[in-house]
């Protein structure tokens, strides 16, 4: 049995199942992070005083991390473009590999930031600012790690699919890319919220 519209677009909706599915998933993610940012706002507005993020966090590291994620969004887009325009699997895998490297460096920098805080004796329980810092960056990190796992699969064992169905493989890269952009976007909002204000 074949599920219709797995790789072909349904004419009247113009969508494949996977592409539609990822947008729905992201809609729920918007609600998830929406709940988180709303909580941040409520807690911050209710606080009597609030530290400046720049005084407590390393703005340079945060900015570098933002840059890394923006670059990784470009590389993953290029990977998808290469597949779509018939640029071949090898090129796409190189670009996916670059995306993974950028993501891993992000994680390393983040881990380093956390470690410094923990060494200074700072914990989520220290105060509301750090509670939000650890929780929000942590939840973002989990999303990023999930993305890295999928990318690792696509660049590694999952690439075998390309030979059987290039179209389906291309769609998987596209869908992962959409997700990756979202994770990137969350950071782009998170960075100024936590580090700059």
């Amino acid at each position, binding site marked *: 049995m074949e599920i219709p519209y797995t790789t072909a677009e349904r004419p009247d909706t113009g969508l494949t*199942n996977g592409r539609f599915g990822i947008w729905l998933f992201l809609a*729920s993610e918007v*609600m998830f992070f929406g709940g988180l940012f709303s909580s941040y706002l409520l807690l911050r507005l209710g606080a009597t005083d609030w530290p400046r993020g720049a005084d407590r966090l390393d703005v340079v590291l945060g900015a570098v991390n933002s840059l890394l994620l923006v670059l990784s969004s470009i590389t993953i887009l290029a990977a998808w473009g290469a597949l779509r325009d018939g640029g071949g699997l090898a090129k796409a895998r190189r670009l996916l590999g670059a995306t993974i490297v950028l993501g891993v460096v992000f994680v390393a920098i983040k881990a380093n930031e956390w470690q410094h805080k923990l060494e200074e004796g700072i914990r989520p329980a220290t105060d509301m600012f750090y509670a939000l810092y650890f929780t929000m960056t942590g939840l973002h990190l989990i999303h990023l790690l999930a993305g890295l796992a999928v990318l690792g699969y696509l660049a590694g064992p999952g690439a075998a699919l390309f030979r059987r169905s290039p179209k389906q493989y291309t769609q998987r890269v596209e869908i992962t890319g959409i997700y990756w952009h979202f994770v990137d976007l969350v950071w782009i909002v998170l960075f100024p919220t936590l580090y700059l204000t």
Partner: protein
Amino acid sequence: MSQESSARETGGSDGVQATPESFLRRYVFSLDHKVIGIQYALTAFLFLLLGFSLVLVLRWQLAYPDEPVPVLGGLLGEERVTEDGAILPEFYNQLGAMHGTIMVFLAIVPLVVGAFGNYLIPLMIGAPDMAFPKLNMASYWTYAAGGLVMLASFFVPGGAANSGWTSYPPLANIATEGQTYWLFGMLMMIISSLLGSVNAIVTIVQLRAPGMTLDRLPFFIWAQLVTAFLLLLAFPPLQTAAVLQMMDRLLDTSFFMPSGLVVNGEVMANSGGGTPLLWQHLFWFLAHPEVYVLILPAFGIVAEIIANNTRRPLWGYRSMVAATLAIGVLAFIVWAHHMFLTGMGTVISAFFQTTTMIISIPSVVILTCLFLSLWGGAIRFTVPMLFALAFLPMFGIGGLTGLPLGLAAADIYLHDTYYVIGHFHYVVAPGTIFAIFAGVYYWFPKVTGRKLSTVLGHLHFWPSLIFMNGIFLPMFKMGMAGVSRRLFDGGRQYDFGEGVAGLNVAMSHSAWALAAVQVFFVVNLVWSLARGRRVGDNPWQATTLEWSAPSPPIPHGNFAREVRVERGPYEYSAPGADQDYLSQADAAQVAEATGS
């Protein structure tokens, strides 16, 4: 047509692979939406039974406070009962909290969405399966795992969660370990329902058979579609909330802890700066839409059964669809009517009071359409129809008693009393649960090829109707007398409670009697599975597509050939037709399915 012959035919006709599946693939880690639907149904019915059993024990304490529980008293252990077997207050709280949690999240939603939705959506739209079979399987197993975590929590020190199904902090923050399990369980339930809702929406939008345009979708499908959107968008903020509460409990943050909180005479050491109200907002942002998740699929089930048994098209199909969509939008802006007593100010109260009054309009529209659908129909009083008919006034009582709760001034008096308990139980118990029973009686022949016994059905229905009302009607009186919910002694400690406390005895006996008559249902299921009368593919002479598939439908694929949809969902008693119903499917499909 028997199952084997139809399976053989498809095997030949369109090359469906005939390799036998292993037992595990077929019944345990199945990818077939029908098997997954049945897995959901069986698991969720077990949870329904468990949730019900908890409250049967709890009701002993309400009827006969501090008296030893018969039989069970000796078995529950010293953490839960006194030496002579009377329920301890701590255990009473666990019973209440877990009853609510299990009923809402592990029983009713998985039944109406996981079981009915999964089984019927592909069949009713003429699709071979759900859009993402693997996600479907993952969704079921995440649900099952979440359920196991909830069950395990009964056996940790301090027992299961005991801060109500609403888990309000600061109480839930400082509660025993069971609360952490509760949060883990909820996170899994949320992930499960997220996977399920993405699947349902994509399936309905993408996999409709040729000719199944939007205005030909059965109302059941519309109800499932809007329900899936509610689950998709309302649940994530609760996920956020659960993560934050987990942080509070495990890493001592203070998201929900105000500064200077005093517990047991001591100031808490937390950094403070948080607010319990944040939890309430996040929780009710989910939980109000959640009540529509409980009721919309029930509307869908009842609508199908009413159209079939009145042999007439639904009255106002389009209005019903519009009303359902309206509910889907408005459900997101009424949540704070659960919070009128939190001191949120009159302007905000007025806003939420207004939206609440507005959202009751579409509910009334749907109910009115269903009532009017009965008008002038040649009603067949089948067992599913009896349950569907009873649903209407029962939901009516539940919905109407909600209006005073939505008016801030009246709610200040009624909030957190037994009146509220009466209100929502009328909606979900004789409401949604009756719709579920109706659905089981109606679609059982499709699932098994056999009909449930009518005699046992009557023995199940009539006493259930009586005892349901016996339990819940007195709650309005108790609530209006001022008795609060969640009281260990049922309100006897207050003067105003004493006058109505006696009602508890009759209510508890109704509950136990209700449990007893469910035996007819269980016996009916088991007996009919083996011995029930074999019926054809379309025993109710129904129009929607699932009835043009074999009973049971073909594993992995459902239909013997591609379906083409020719007409709307409720072509009953169409003028000029030579029978009183016209299937949505084309003539060839119908002929093949019925083997003629």
